[in-house]
């Protein structure tokens, strides 16, 4: 046989709950209970509220640049909920706040981070995650390494790492995928394909028909899911995480979702994307379909929605207070975390710092060059 196929594969797409909140009963069998859905829906309302307030904090000059998560809550919650809190390990990017909160990150830490305060990265003891990763595409290697350590130590733990569609263009992404695959480590690669990387649309970012197929090159189990469908995301994540825990190696999940907001508060998406496209996605909002589902089952009502939103407002107001009332960081903090033990020269520099009469209010910084997007 002079010519034959040596490899072929395909990518499955999974949706369990459609935009109208209709559920495929067969597929939904071993996913979330209605009780869980109710709980997670309320939680998503809290997260959406925090996101909106964060936006307003930036607009009123009380916080720096902030990347809104709006519209991507199902991807973060469905996957985060599938991982075991206190056992599994999250290695995030910056657009999955809800997953971090589910695993115990105090909510005001996210605000602190975007208020330019490293204490927002000081992950509390027992909370298993790395801080937000601002440099794109770098953290998946760390996730692979952490998973590798779990494997070496024979601990039944899994890492899940988050990144965007744009991040899959970076070389480090491919190195992480190859390491994870060749070493068969318990790592789940969770791509939030929100269709845009700042101003670059997905089809210009890559010539591949799906992001999920990139995993085929590494012979990794892979799936594309409706990322705005809480049930589908949860099911795919659960499968991948349990497979990894059982020694089945890494998996890839492409969650197809949409960035409903600008890239960050410093961006103006009207410069590069059609509002018609955005409008078409508004109806696919993960929160809308959950509400429809719950209403159809008589588990939800306008009153309950109102009450839930009120609850979220009160809750988030406290979060904001926690972030805004924290004392100013010590100037010595600039020095004290450079090494376990401070070298002599650094100690000298620290002393000169203390004696000078500095201490301008950073909020008075010259903002003339405030970039329009980053």
């Amino acid at each position: 046989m002079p010519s034959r196929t040596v490899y072929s594969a395909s990518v499955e797409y999974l949706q369990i709950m459609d935009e109208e909140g209709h559920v495929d009963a067969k597929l939904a069998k071993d996913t979330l209970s209605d009780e869980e859905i109710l709980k997670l829906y309320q939680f998503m309302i809290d997260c959406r509220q925090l996101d909106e307030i964060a936006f307003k904090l930036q607009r009123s000059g009380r916080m720096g640049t902030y990347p809104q998560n709006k519209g991507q809550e199902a991807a973060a919650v469905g996957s985060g909920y599938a991982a075991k809190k206190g056992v599994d390990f999250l290695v995030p990017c910056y657009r999955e706040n809800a997953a971090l909160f589910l695993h115990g990150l105090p909510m005001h830490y996210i605000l602190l981070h975007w208020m330019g305060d490293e204490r927002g990265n000081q992950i509390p003891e027992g909370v298993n995650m790395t801080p937000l990763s601002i440099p794109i595409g770098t953290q998946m290697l760390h996730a692979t390494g952490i998973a590798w350590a779990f494997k070496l130590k024979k601990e039944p733990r899994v890492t899940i790492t988050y990144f965007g569609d744009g991040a899959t263009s970076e070389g480090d992404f491919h190195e992480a995928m190859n390491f994870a695959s060749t070493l068969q480590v318990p790592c789940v690669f969770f791509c939030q394909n929100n269709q845009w990387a700042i101003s670059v649309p997905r089809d210009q970012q890559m010539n591949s028909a799906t992001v999920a197929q990139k995993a085929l090159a590494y012979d990794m189990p892979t799936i594309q899911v409706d990322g705005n469908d809480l049930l589908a995301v949860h099911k795919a994540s659960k499968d991948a995480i349990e497979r990894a825990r059982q020694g089945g190696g890494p998996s890839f999940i492409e969650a197809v979702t949409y960035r409903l907001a600008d890239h960050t508060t410093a961006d103006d998406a009207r410069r590069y994307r059609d509002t018609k496209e955005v409008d078409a996605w508004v109806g696919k909002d993960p929160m809308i379909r959950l509400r429809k589902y719950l209403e159809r089952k008589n588990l939800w009502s306008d009153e309950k929605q109102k009450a839930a939103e009120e609850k979220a407002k009160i809750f988030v107001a406290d979060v904001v207070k926690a972030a805004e009332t924290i004392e100013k960081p010590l100037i010595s903090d600039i020095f004290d975390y450079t090494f376990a033990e401070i070298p002599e020269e650094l100690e000298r520099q620290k002393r000169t710092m203390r004696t000078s009469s500095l201490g301008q209010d950073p909020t008075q910084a010259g903002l003339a060059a405030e970039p329009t997007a980053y």
Partner: protein
Amino acid sequence: MPRTEMMKEKGLTLVDAINEALYQEMERDDRVVCLGEDVGLNGGVFRVTDGLQKRFGADRVVDTPLAESGIMGTAIGLAMGGMRPIPEIQFEGFMGPAYDQLTNHAARYRTRSRGAITVPMTVRVPVGGGIHAPELHSDSPESIYAHTPGLKVVMPCTPYDAKGLLLAAIRDPDPVVFFEPKRVYRSYREQIPEEDYTIPIGQAKVVSEGTDITVVSWGASVFECLAALDKLPEDVSAELIDLRTIYPIDQDTIIQSVQKTGRCVIVHEAPKTCGMGAELSAIIQEHCFLHLKAPVQRVAGFDTVMPYYKLELEYLPNAERIGESIVQTLSY
């Protein structure tokens, strides 16, 4: 882009001047291509490349995939293939993934091919702190690249210098890293010639002449130095030098000045240890030893990670720290 009424009336900002230089050079030389993340349709995150794609098309102003090593490496190839690429790295903190391509490849091709293969490209990079930005958006890595044989490194801080140095960089036969101090991107306007002009790479600028002390700086810190000089007692005559080119260093201008004043303070945002201040002060002691009346001082960033923005102004050299150092040096 062609000048707006605002520019005609009030002058150009650093952003305007760089944009004008890119526009004019792309008109003049069709080998010039701009490539990078969001540089096309969006005009760059700082709008430095605004309007270029509209005028020159998506083949010459290219929104690349999100991959700095890819941007730098293919720019090298474009240069070797006869183009004049201008890759943009969105922020200096993201030069990391491109480091290997820039330092091990762009910088070395001429030497390792004994001149047979060269890399005429200009790498544009916003640099420095002070704009309230997130992590890895505020660093000052110029000495790393000045320490890489085969790279030229420039960092103009005024619109006039930026246009002239950018045109010189694009026409230079070797790779040039063109750092743009983002803190002063829009804070200062000046009238500059509309026509083509170049400023030679490797020439410092005497911003203000003086006889008592030499202050050397570059990038956004030059403006902090100006503020510090303003507050000095009337009878102090300070000479301020804007290095403009980080490598090759304009030794003559520095040496002449310090031989005249006998005192020198060097100011930069980058960490003190192994910053360019160390190199400059070595040059000064090699050439001005018997002229010195006081030890050369450095006012720099600390040897720490650049802090997030709540503390960034504590980190960056400011007029107060610079002033203190000048006064101390004068009274040595």
